[in-house]
Structures are given as C-alpha cells and as structure tokens.
C-alpha cells in the first residue's frame, strides 16, 4: 500500500478529531486532493492553493541554489582562498567546495524557517480546528533568501514565530493578512537585531568570527563584506562591475543577489500566470523614474560631490535594479496576491509606488540601506485604500455613462 493510501486511511481514521488537519495538510501537499472546490463558480478549481504555492517555490529554487553557491564563494573569496570568478559559468563559482560551504550555512536556515513556521501553523490549525493553511510554504522559502548568511538561527526562529503569529495568524491566517509575512519576519529581525541585519560583517560568512578574533588579539586580516548599497551609502568605492551585479556575484542576503535568476523566475511566474506582470512592470518603471529624477538632480549640479547622498544619487538609474534586494522584492514579494492590490489599475499604482519609494528610501535614509522591504510593507498597508478608490472611480464612471445613455 502506498503512502497515499496510508495517509488517506489516517485521514479517515482521524476525521473530526483534533489532529485531522495535520494529516490532511500532508496529504494534500504531496498529492492531488481527493476533493476540489464544491460550490461557487470556480471554473479553474482543479488546482488548490498548494499548487499555486508550489509554482512560486519552483521559481525560487534557482535563487536558493545560486544563494548556496554564492555563500560559499563569498566566504572563500573574502578569505583569499580563491580568485574572483570571471563570469556566470566560471568554475571558481560553481565549485563543490563553494557548494558544501554554502549548504552548511544556508540549509540550517531553510530548515529552521520551515520547521518553526510550520509548527506554528500546525498548532494554530489544531487549536482553531481549521485546515492547515498553505501560506507558509512560500513564506518559509522566502525567509532564508532574504536574511544574511550569518544570522544566528535562534533569532530567525524568534522572528518567524513573531511574523507568523502577529503578522498573519492574529488576522485570521492565510489570505487575511495585511502585511507580507516574510517581510514582517525580516522587518522584525531588522529592528530587533540591527547588528545582525546591517553593516559590513554579516553578509559574508566568517566576517563576524574574524572580527571577534581580531578583537581578541589575533593577527589576521579583517574581512569586509560590505554590500554595494552599503558602500554607496558611505560614499565608498567598490570593485564589482556591472556584470557581477547582474549575475549576482556580490555580497548580500542569501537569495537576492542574482538579478539574472530573479529575471528568469519572474518570467516563469508571469508565464504560469501566478505573479502579476502589472505589478512587476510598474514597480520597475517606478524605480527607474525615481532613479532618473535623482540622476537629473545630479546632472543639474544641484547637489555637490561632498553631499552624503551623492554616490547613491549619481548611481546610474538602471543600476538600482541590479543592486540590493529591489529586483527580488519586486518579483517575489510585491506580487504576493494576498497583500497586493486586487484591481488591475490598483496594481499599476501599487507597483509604481513600491519602486518609487524603494529608491527614495535607499537614497535618503542611509540608516536603511535597503528600502524595498519598507516600501513593500508600506504599500501593503495602502493596497486596500488604493483598491477602494479604483473601485469608486469605476462606479462613478459607469454611473455617468448610464446617465448619458438614459438622458
């Protein structure tokens, strides 16, 4: 008898009992559910929410694998054991040593994220007597990709509990949350433990240890794992060229460095109709628009080289998409169907403002080197308002049309 039958039997056995949601969740995660939508006019009811989530996870897997290699690569590059990778397919990058080093650091983060998050989900499902909700499948994969590689695991666990409970469960679970849970988790980490979420030490594995050794009197070189945004915010030079940024051979949160793979993932999401292309396109337009405004200000000479904003403002406008987590946020976070605007016109406004505000925060608030997290959270809050006005506008327009016709 296969696993499917076993699970089904367990489900039948525990039907109506407390643990039923737990078995049901495992069953529908692994196999096509026995029953799909019963009522309403759900023409496309063959897929349930878990399929949607799995599709997003598929789009995230390339980023995760790249992130694992990159974690190892950045570590060995910083310790001077390997030389700089020449291109995307360079053997320096795709080496076994990089992979094992990266997996050693990244996989525990993935495991902690899923185990803690799903435990909270299961506990809440059992207490509430609901089905286990699918929402954490994607959140659990997003979280490891947006934290620094050296984040202590217990902090991650605390943040995941906070994010899932306060960000999602108190509002009623998946589909009811106002804020993107993965970003709630990251925002919690950012404000609770800022030393582990920013600065020039946490992005490359080993830099923190090395700094401690030096503080302890050891005679070794410090590792600087400054991100490009961090360097720019301090008007410091960095030696990454534009292709490094595009391929993602730069320090940063685990999964957000490679714009190339994010682009592929984004196209995949658009192709499978899971992610909204309107949000992605408008967010890119928004970021470029703000970048162009800043470039224009610099070109006009309104801001001097001595200004602390000079480096970030004079960054070529389209480079903003390649550095930091902007691309990752736009493709995977802003398009979250629960927290984004629902109306098509609303999506354009919502996306545009995300891009626009991200770059603004980036440039004007050096304390928050990456603005996309805060921009998306802010727009999550405003999404229902945007929808409301789009709907009202539509109603008004149609009422007017009706009046013209009947008059």
């Amino acid at each position, binding site marked *: 008898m296969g696993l499917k039958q076993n699970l089904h039997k367990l489900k039948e056995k525990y039907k109506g009992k407390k643990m039923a949601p737990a078995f049901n969740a495992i069953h529908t995660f692994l196999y096509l559910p026995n029953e799909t939508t019963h009522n309403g006019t759900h023409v496309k009811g063959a897929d349930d929410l878990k399929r949607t989530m799995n599709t997003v996870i598929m789009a995230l897997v390339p980023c995760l694998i790249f992130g694992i290699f990159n974690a190892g690569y950045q570590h060995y590059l910083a310790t001077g054991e390997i030389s700089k990778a020449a291109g995307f397919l360079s053997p320096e990058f795709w080496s076994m040593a990089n992979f094992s080093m990266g997996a050693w650091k990244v996989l525990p983060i993935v495991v902690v994220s899923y185990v803690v998050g799903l435990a909270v989900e299961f506990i809440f499902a059992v207490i509430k007597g609901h089905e286990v909700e699918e929402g954490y499948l994607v959140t659990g994969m997003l979280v490891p990709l947006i934290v620094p590689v050296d984040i*202590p695991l*217990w*902090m991650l666990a*605390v943040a995941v509990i906070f994010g899932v409970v*306060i960000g999602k469960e*108190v509002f009623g679970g998946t589909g009811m949350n106002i804020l993107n849970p993965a970003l709630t988790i990251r925002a*919690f980490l950012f*404000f*609770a*433990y*800022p*030393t*582990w979420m920013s600065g020039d030490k946490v992005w490359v594995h080993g830099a923190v240890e090395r700094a401690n050794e030096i503080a302890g009197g050891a005679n070794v070189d410090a590792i600087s794992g400054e991100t490009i945004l961090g360097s720019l915010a301090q008007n410091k030079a960095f030696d990454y060229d534009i292709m490094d940024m595009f391929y993602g051979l730069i320090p940063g949160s685990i999964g957000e460095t490679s714009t190339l793979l994010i682009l592929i993932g984004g196209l995949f999401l658009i192709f499978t109709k899971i992610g909204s292309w309107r949000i992605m396109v408008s967010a890119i337009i928004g970021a470029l628009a703000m970048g162009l405004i800043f470039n224009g200000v610099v070109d006009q000479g309104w801001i001097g080289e001595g200004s602390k904003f000079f480096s970030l403002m004079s960054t070529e406008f389209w480079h903003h998409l390649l550095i930091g987590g902007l691309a990752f946020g736009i493709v995977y976070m802003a398009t979250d169907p629960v927290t984004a605007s629902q109306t098509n016109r609303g999506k354009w406004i919502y996306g545009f403002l995300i891009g626009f505000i991200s770059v603004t925060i980036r440039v004007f608030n050096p304390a928050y080197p990456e603005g996309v997290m805060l921009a998306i959270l802010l727009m999550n809050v405003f999404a229902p308002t945007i929808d409301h006005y789009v709907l009202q506008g539509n109603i008004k327009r149609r009422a007017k049309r009706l009046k013209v016709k009947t008059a």
Partner: protein
Amino acid sequence: MALLSKKDSKLILDPLADNNPITIQVLGICSALAITAQLKASIVMSISVIFVMGVGNIVISLMRNIIPSKIRIIVQLVVVATLVIIVDQVLKAFSYQLSKELGAFIGLIITNCIIMGRFEAFALGNGVWRSFLDGIGNALGYGVILIIVGFFRELLGSGTLLGFPVLGDPIAKSGVYSIGYENNGFMLLAPMALIVVGIIIWVQRSRNKALIEEN
C-alpha cells in the same frame, strides 16, 4: 472582614480585569506606549496616576453639586492640572533623575483620557467614598497593564529589571549573553508596546469569552 461591601469592592476589582481601562476600553494608550520601555518609569507613572485619580475623583465628587454643568470640563481640567503639578513638583524634589527621564509625560497625565473619563462618567454622579474607590480601581487597572508591559519591554529589550542586569552583561558577555543571546532592540520601540498591549488583550479575551463582541 468586610472592609468593603460587595458593591464597593466591585468598583476596585472590575477595572483590574473585566473592565480594564487599557485592554477593554482602550483608553490611555499614549502613555502606555511612551514610558513603558523601563519598568521603573512604568511604576512611577502608575503611582502618579493612582494619586491623581484617587484625589481627583474625591475633589470632583465633593464639588459635583456646585459645578455648573456648562463649565464642568474646565473645572475638571483645573483639578487634574493642579494634582499633576503637585506630582511633578514632588518628583522634581525627591527624584530629579526620574523626573527628567519621564520628561513631559508626567505633565501629559492631564490629557490621559482615563482620568477625564472617570470624572465625567463616575465622580460627577456618585458619592465621595465610591468615587475614590472607582478612581483607585481604574488607576490600578491602568497601572497593572503598564507594569506588565514595562516588565516585558525592559526585560527583553534591555536585559534589565528596574535597572538591575538580571540577564547578565551584554558587553562583557556574561550570563545568558555568553551563549549568544542578544537584546531585542525592537522591544524598545513604541510599536512593540502596542503589540504587547495587543497580545495582553488577545490573551484576556480568549480566557474570558464574555468579552468578545458579537457582530
């Protein structure tokens, strides 16, 4: 035994739990957010409010029959303001450091809606003894929440309680810090106070189903 009659003790005990001014009526939130980053400040704030509300309710209750109703708000404000200035002066005289830490918030007790609310709702229509009990009860209910929030925020945010390093020294890495624990900086920010109050409301409502509104 019966220091207070059943009706009177209800005046004190009700605001502590089932009719708490912060968690049930959701009043006086501003100060609950502003000064609860430290337990000591929370305690001093609670004592100040207990004093102001107890005495204030007595005074208003004594004057309730001679206050013209058109100017009653102004009279109430004068009473609170007088009491708050007394508290402020006492703090400045005997604990200058603390009064500096609390800053404007002692002065802002005047704007605490719980106080004006109880003057209006209770002291204007009840006898002196009952008004006093009501004032003390509501102030205690306010203080309890403040102290709970202050306890968690100071413990998790700074690792201290009343200024004593109960969790060890974060810089010398002693106590729990030696195994990698770190203070949660988010706890010191105002949003976390709101979230802690929210969690208290959540716990309270799930323990007492009668508090959940029908809709």
